[in-house]
């Protein structure tokens, strides 16, 4: 599905061309335009609300990338990913608040970036720990073991012990100025947006490259049939654990990023339902597609906002206020319905539609 169909008369002549990121001039132009919109257009045009929505989308993308890797590319179903986000967020926060940083690192604004990296590694290792059962179990049984990650990590370890460090009780608050990247203090939606953008692009690039490598092919082989993969000489257990590590690593970065937007965290910010939400994101966006992760995230965040803005117009009318109250419950049900609808009518998710549309224009006028 990720294959791009080239316009008529264009052919790949080398492997390098075949694996190139941007295979035609048109695609290169398209991507430059996209970067222009992301780095210039949105920051110029969007206000704090718009940026806040973008940051929410970005957080969802960062969170869902690891889920996509595990479920979409390695076939390891996970329902405990919020735990790894929590590990990342708490590791980064604790490092910022408690670690005796040399003054020079603080002055150069390196404390937070270093804490992000450490958070990613800690979350990755923690994820591997919960990936160990994947050696013996899969499917529904693996779901249960990954759910245990949530209960053990967030509900037990973080809530009972980590949250108590420093006597702060349940909520860690990051004083203004502590989240600093180089010379920039991350204290506005715009700065959070740029950070989100850089992290998202970086992680997507790394993941896509990884998926094009031997490692990625091994993961896909395991997803498609782990016994066949094993017969071909792939170290199935080793690659599964590597997938858990990378997914946790990305989740750790997502969590560490999110504290820049919140300036405070508590275990309540990482509920189990968020893991479920992330699975919903990739189901709607498209399982086994990086595009799908982005599309699913946009869909899940923007549609809720858009629907609420629409309803808001009618609240002052007598029927509108009633609609508003009823809509609240419809909204929750609607999400379940949307996932069901996607499963039935478009099991490949939004990414498949995007692929069809893209190829229609790439092959135009012979797109039959």
């Amino acid at each position: 599905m990720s294959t791009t169909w080239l316009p008529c008369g264009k052919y790949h002549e080398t492997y390098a061309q075949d694996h190139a990121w941007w295979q035609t001039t048109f695609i290169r132009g398209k991507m430059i335009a996209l970067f222009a919109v992301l780095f210039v257009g949105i920051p110029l045009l969007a206000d704090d609300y718009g940026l806040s929505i973008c940051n929410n989308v970005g957080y969802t993308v960062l969170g869902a990338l690891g889920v996509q890797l595990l479920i979409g590319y390695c076939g390891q179903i996970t329902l405990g990913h919020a735990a790894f986000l929590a590990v990342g967020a708490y590791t980064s926060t604790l490092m910022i608040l408690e670690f005796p940083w040399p003054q020079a690192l603080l002055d150069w604004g390196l404390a937070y970036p270093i804490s992000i990296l450490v958070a990613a590694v800690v979350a990755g290792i923690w994820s591997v720990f919960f990936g160990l059962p994947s050696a013996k179990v899969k499917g529904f049984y693996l779901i249960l073991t990954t759910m245990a990650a949530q209960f053990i990590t967030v509900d037990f370890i973080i809530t009972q012990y980590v949250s108590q460090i420093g006597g702060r009780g349940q909520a860690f608050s990051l004083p203004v100025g502590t989240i600093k990247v180089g010379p920039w203090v991350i204290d506005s939606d715009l700065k959070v947006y740029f950070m989100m953008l850089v992290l998202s692009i970086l992680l997507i690039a790394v993941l896509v490259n990884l998926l094009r490598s031997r490692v990625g092919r091994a993961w896909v082989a395991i997803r498609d049939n782990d016994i066949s993969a094993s017969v071909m000489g792939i170290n199935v257990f080793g690659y599964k654990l590597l997938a858990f590590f990378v997914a946790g690593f990305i989740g750790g970065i997502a969590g560490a990023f999110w504290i820049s937007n919140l300036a405070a965290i508590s275990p309540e910010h990482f509920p189990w339902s968020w893991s479920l939400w992330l699975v919903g994101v990739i189901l709607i966006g498209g399982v086994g597609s990086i595009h799908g992760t982005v599309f699913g995230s946009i869909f899940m965040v923007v549609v809720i906002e858009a629907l609420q803005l629409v309803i808001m117009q009618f609240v002052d009318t007598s029927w509108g206020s009633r609609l508003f109250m009823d809509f609240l419950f419809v909204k929750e049900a609607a999400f379940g319905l949307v996932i069901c609808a996607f499963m039935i009518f478009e099991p490949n998710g939004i990414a498949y539609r995007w692929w069809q549309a893209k190829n229609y224009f790439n092959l135009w006028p012979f797109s039959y």
Partner: protein
Amino acid sequence: MSIQSRGTKGFAFLFAVALIFGFSSWAGAAQINIGALNDMTGATSDVGKDYALGIAEAFHYINDTGGINGKQIKLYQFDYGYRIPEALTKYKLFKRLKCVAIQGWGTGDTEALAPTVAKDQIPYVSASYSGHLTNPEKTPYNLFISADYSTQSRGLITAWYDNKWPKKADYGKRKPRIAMCYMFASPFSSASIKAAKDQAEMLGFEIGDDQDVSLFAIDTKSQILALKEFKPDVVLHTNTVMSVAATLRDAYSLGLGADHIIKNWGFDENLPKLAGEAAEGAMGCAPWAFFGEDVPMMDKVVEYAKKYNPGVPLEKRTIHTVQAWANVLGMAEALKRADAAGDLSGPSILKNGFETMRDFTIGLGVAPITFTSEDHRALSIARVYEYTQGEFKLLDTVDLQKRWPEKYAKEWIGW
């Protein structure tokens, strides 16, 4: 036309409408915009829905009775389902809509938003009554019309100590024993635990291990069995009503034999309905009157409940509606004072509005409220009710400021 394309077009239409209307400016000439963030579908919706209805009804009342010195209030009310990322986004939307003040909800998002609110200088009146929000040095723009959770917990423990402990068989023979049930992971549930333990220590209680009771709990037998080993005389509950009711039921059926003292969100008209006989004798803090009680302004609360939400039977309305009215009436008064001073900016609403209130009475059974620039604890009084023989009866009123003036003024603010 395929189902998919119809769906796509429908979505595109909705999104376009949202873009056209939602991204435009809303500020009108004689209109004051207020934002409201409520939980009607999330973790705290068991109490949040009634509160949200009360917010809308109370603003209708303000508008029907002349608004803010003639200016009408435009309320933008959202359900954020207790999802904190969504709360942050909605806050940004309120800023875009030029809301001059916000009616907020939970402790998690209110505390998370507190630094931003302070930076943006937008008065944020929350339904979170966390003591952490009462120190203007740290959270200058956070306010609420209630006794904070810490004051409630201290008052509850004191009221039990004064009224119930002397009647126990072991009185004078040993220290009273107290344990606390709450959701550890919830900033809301755990907000006043430190203060509660401080109060219990001060009064000479023996304190048992805390019990982690989820806000969604429907079975708490393991926690009650753990409590039975400690044999508490009294248990403090700081969750919302559903999990409190579940805990009371299990305590009753397993014969815990302790009294129960409950923070305001776990003590409402639904508690006896949910807990049945187990609610008998439960004590709770209610800084406001119960829905329908014979107090000033209650007639308006009932009238507007009937008028704007006729589909919700009055017998299902609760004290949380009254709480919402208290917060709205307090905010409206602050807006009127700021408007009279000719400035409806956030700093003016705070300085010329809230912080000029001295022993101001809003009715609804709420004690006179006072805000100063040094202290945002509106009330120092914890009104403690007891549910007995099918009725909520006022048991005691504990005024912490009068009883421990030094500690109240200097030590207890902000936690």
